[in-house]
């Protein structure tokens, strides 16, 4: 009694998961719920957003997992259900489809002929065996090699094209499962992290998005970072030069590797992507000062906050620095600095210097006895790298390749079948295709026309 009951429940569960209605429900459900995460900000949730919603909403959204919706238990559950559903549907339907491929209907009897929408009959002279040979040659030349079966004096020829394309949809289903497996491998054995490396320094661990410190097992040094801009001021290229170090020694082949957006560096399964950059502080500014009366200019190297002594006992300090002064000083685009000079007697003077070579003599026009020039700045950057370890990515690509193959089979290929029945003085042609009936009708009519002209 219990066993039949169990079987009843198992059968019910099986029927539930085999149902196409469940597939449609899950697909639509995934589509609708996915919208939430594109409207509500996802982790890390900006604090500006949190301030705009009521505490009740905040708590509700938090409980429902809306801030990390795509990893919430209910969304993952929907994905698992879809996976089980498509596996169950495939298992249920595959044997039937496999039978069509492996055990094709070789004989077109009257009942089967009536079920075909495309048939054509020709009167032909000659004996059945002779006609059979002629038809076999015709099918081989015009369509595909036929299988011949003799049933009570009549000959049945069957030929088909692309029978395996019927499996396309199952290949797609399998590929989706493989992509999911790849994603699972990535989420269990991989991590995503972010790291800033200042020029000249190196790191041997990174902090993952979940806040864990991940030991790389080697070091990465940022040799140099450079950013170039278009004339409009929009960034053109971010470029990091990275070196991989094992036990403090550069690894051959991984020295001074150029990493730009769309061209990452991979070492031991860990990939470094150019993501952002910033000033690492510690910019050195180079100026020089000379007396109006003559003499060699004296170079001055200073940080932004320094009070730098000058040869005559004065002090110089940067009180303003701008990366672009072209709008205030036409023709002098580029950085500029405002300097405060404190003379030995306590008197203060102010000087404006511009880096643009055409405006190097700008301070001369001030008329002071000390003339300053802006010679350059050595800016230090840090490079912001996205770090990812994803051992599942190859499984995902395998799934994607399979998906492309499966989709091409399922959508762009058609299982075409042709039957010919040869009786005495009579030839009957029948055909069907798994897809695009309108297209197959043209193929069929062409075959029929050729057969007509060939038998006359």
């Amino acid at each position: 009694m219990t066993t039949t009951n169990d079987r009843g429940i198992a059968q019910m569960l099986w029927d539930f998961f085999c149902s196409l209605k469940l597939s449609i429900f899950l697909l639509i459900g995934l589509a609708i719920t996915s919208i939430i995460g594109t409207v509500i900000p996802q982790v890390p949730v900006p604090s500006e957003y949190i301030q705009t919603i009521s505490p009740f909403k905040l708590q509700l959204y938090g409980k429902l997992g809306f801030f990390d919706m795509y990893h919430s238990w209910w969304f993952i559950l929907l994905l698992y259900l879809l996976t089980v559903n498509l596996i169950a549907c495939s298992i249920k339907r595959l044997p039937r489809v496999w039978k069509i491929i492996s055990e094709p209907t070789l004989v077109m009897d009257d009942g089967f002929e009536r079920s075909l929408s495309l048939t054509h009959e020709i009167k032909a002279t000659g004996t059945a065996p002779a006609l059979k040979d002629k038809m076999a040659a015709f099918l081989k030349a015009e369509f595909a090699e036929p299988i011949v079966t003799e049933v009570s004096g009549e000959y049945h020829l069957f030929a088909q094209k692309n029978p395996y394309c019927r499996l396309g949809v199952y290949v797609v289903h399998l590929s989706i499962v493989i992509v999911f497996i790849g994603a699972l491998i990535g989420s269990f054995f991989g991590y995503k992290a972010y790291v800033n490396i200042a020029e000249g320094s190196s790191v041997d661990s990174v902090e993952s998005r979940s806040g864990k410190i991940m030991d790389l097992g080697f070091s990465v040094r940022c040799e140099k970072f450079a950013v170039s801009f278009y004339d409009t001021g929009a960034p053109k290229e971010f470029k990091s030069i990275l070196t991989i170090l094992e036990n403090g020694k550069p690894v051959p082949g991984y020295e001074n590797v150029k990493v730009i957006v769309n061209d990452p560096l991979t070492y031991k399964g860990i990939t470094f992507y150019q993501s952002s950059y910033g000033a690492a502080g510690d910019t050195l500014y180079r100026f020089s000062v000379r007396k109006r009366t003559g003499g060699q200019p004296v170079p001055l190297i200073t940080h932004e906050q320094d009070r730098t002594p000058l040869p005559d006992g004065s002090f110089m300090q940067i009180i303003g620095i701008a990366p672009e002064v072209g709008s205030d000083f036409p023709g002098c685009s580029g950085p500029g600095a405002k300097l405060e000079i404190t003379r030995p007697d306590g008197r203060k003077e102010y000087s404006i210097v511009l880096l643009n070579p055409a405006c190097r003599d700008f301070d001369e026009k001030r008329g002071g006895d000390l003339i300053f020039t802006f010679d350059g700045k050595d800016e230090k950057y840090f490079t912001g790298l996205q770090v990812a370890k994803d051992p599942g990515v190859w499984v995902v690509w395998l799934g994607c390749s399979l998906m492309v193959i499966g989709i091409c089979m399922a959508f762009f290929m058609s299982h075409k079948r042709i039957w010919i029945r040869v009786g005495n003085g009579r030839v009957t042609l029948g055909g069907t295709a798994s897809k695009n009936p309108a297209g197959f009708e043209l193929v069929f009519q062409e075959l029929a026309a050729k057969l007509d002209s060939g038998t006359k």
Partner: protein
Amino acid sequence: MNALLFYCTLGIYIFATVIYLIYLVKPEQLLGRAAHWVVSAGFIAHLAFTVNRFVEVGHTPITNLHESLSFFSLAVIGIFIIFERKYKMFVLGSFITPLALILLAVSTTFPSAITPLNPALKSKWLAVHTIVAFLGYGAFAISFGASIMYLIQSHFLKSKKLGAMFQRLPSLDTLDDISYRCLTFGFPLLTFAIISGAIWAETAWGTYWSWDPKETWSLITWFVYAALLHGRLTTGWRGRKAAILSIIGFFIMLFTFLGVNLLLSGLHSYK
């Protein structure tokens, strides 16, 4: 040169739309054939504009809303011409050419200046990803047009007002067939666009999928069309229901393309 080609295309599309709309009222074979040749000429001008723009900017010209709306319009017209040649059904143009014209007209409201390429877009995947995506969008747009016609036609049938319009529109079966055939092109192309996008994202952002709004909305579009294709397997979802879902799918696709760029912020916001 470029602006000239653009306005030339716009002009020819306006002309073609007018002929197709006249055809809707006065369905004469000659008029339909004329409309077909005019829209074909427009397509060639549009293609010339796109190629010229490609040469001028030095990369696939689908990197901002002006360029992508224009390319969308090109894809719609291109696929429409193929279908028209196959089905010999000019009345489809009365619904499709206005749509393509609107897309091209809307593209003029966005700046057409050649802007330098964002570092993230400098990739060989730019061409594959965008062209495949917009061909898919084009196929969905034709499916949308056929579905609209289906609903109009079935409305006539239901209300038993078999007026002049009824006789001009193709049979329900033909419209359903066109709508479905478009989906069987649009869906694979959308799938390929998502896969190529994932490969690109892996090289550019370090992750093949990050639930960025554009990615998510393209997946939503994929889910909806997948549901529609599976729904057709059970007999209930042919015809009217399928037409309504195809129309919904098209609006979701439009949101994926435009809404995400204009309303939601994310990695894909190339305006």
